[in-house]
């Protein structure tokens, strides 16, 4: 039985898992859907009540029924490197590939439906609340007056994109940013705005969840840091990530979240405040993990490989990530 990895060739983080699978003797087929019709081919037939299919890439051939698991890591858009790419061809190729994969019994990390839903930050915040995780007071609005009133109730705010995406024309980055007390909120009317109470943090937490395994890392905040440097991805790094235990209450909440989201993999970001409370910021369903593994030595790639090979999460309670056939 084969592990199918959907990702781009440059994804060296996926390499860390391919290595572990190779060491375990688990067959792997890795392909980028962007290469459909050039380097990647597929076929499936539905005859006399039965269906079968196969994929091929680089001389490797795998049958759909021979798939153990599918890891949707960083795939390109289907057929975008075809000889004559088009939006129509991408839609055709995407429907063919993912439609056929959906009828296999393979389990997913993560299932496309669960992944798509899990990207919605407003949904994440609600699921985190329901999972009893601590969530900073948040407002998402296009009403300037609502923003003004929220700022009166919570004077120390940050703003961040609702989608997590960044504008590309021209390319810009929108880090989580502190909102000054005298800010004019009238431009809130021109786009949904996510305002959140700023957590005075003493550390950032990255909690990587693989099946039922929780691997947390902590990066202490620089005590001399500018309080306007809110976003750890943009702030100067003064410490490596260090492995840390997960408080029991947080672990329980995170497992509830993973079950609710039907995810097999998730990378949670928390802000730890002065009282040691972990405040949920977001959960990236395909978040990077290589940098954490390199700093902490935590076996994240090996844990993913074990899960994909079918031996992770033996009690099967949490985050199967494998919706049934024909979902």
């Amino acid at each position, binding site marked *: 039985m084969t592990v199918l990895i959907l990702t781009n060739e440059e994804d060296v983080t996926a390499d*860390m898992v391919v*290595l572990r699978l190779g060491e375990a003797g688990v067959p792997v087929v890795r392909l980028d859907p962007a290469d459909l019709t050039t380097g990647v081919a597929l076929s499936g037939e539905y005859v006399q009540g039965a269906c079968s299919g196969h994929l091929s890439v680089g001389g490797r051939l795998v049958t759909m029924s021979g798939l153990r698991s599918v890891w949707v890591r960083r795939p390109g858009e289907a057929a975008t490197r075809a000889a004559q790419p088009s939006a129509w061809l991408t839609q055709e190729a995407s429907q063919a590939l993912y439609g056929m994969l959906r009828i296999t019994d393979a389990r997913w990390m993560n299932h496309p439906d669960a992944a798509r839903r899990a990207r919605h930050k407003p949904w994440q915040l609600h699921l985190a609340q329901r999972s009893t995780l601590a969530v900073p007071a948040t407002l998402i609005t296009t009403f300037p007056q609502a923003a003004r009133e929220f700022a009166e109730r919570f004077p120390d705010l940050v703003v961040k*994109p609702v989608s997590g995406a960044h504008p590309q024309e021209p390319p*810009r*980055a*929108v880090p989580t940013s502190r909102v000054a007390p005298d800010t004019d909120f009238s431009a809130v009317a021109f786009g949904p705005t996510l305002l959140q109470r700023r957590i005075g943090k003493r550390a950032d937490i990255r909690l990587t969840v693989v099946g039922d395994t929780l691997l947390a890392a902590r990066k202490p905040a620089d005590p001399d840091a500018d309080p306007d440097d809110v976003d750890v991805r943009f702030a100067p790094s003064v410490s490596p990530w260090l492995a840390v235990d997960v408080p029991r209450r947080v672990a329980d909440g995170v497992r509830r979240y993973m079950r609710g989201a039907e995810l097999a993999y998730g*990378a949670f970001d928390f802000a730890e405040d002065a009282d040691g409370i972990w405040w949920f910021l977001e959960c990236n369903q395909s978040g990077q993990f290589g940098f954490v593994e390199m700093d902490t030595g935590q076996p994240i790639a090996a844990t993913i490989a074990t899960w994909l090979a079918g031996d992770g999460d033996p009690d099967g309670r949490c985050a199967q990530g494998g919706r049934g056939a024909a979902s």
Partner: protein
Amino acid sequence: MQPFTLNYARPAVQLDVTTPYAYDSGLQLNVLPDGRIAATDHATLRALGTTTSTAGSKTHFDD
């Protein structure tokens, strides 16, 4: 008419990084010029930041 959130945007850092490794379709891994597996060379990966949560990724927002 610019949305409020974009008041906090900054120019994206254009990383003109040339990765010193290339994909080997036989191994299904990226390989350095000297034949070593790129994923085992943590010094190179750290220098390139290719496994890091970056924010603002052009094609993915799952950092």
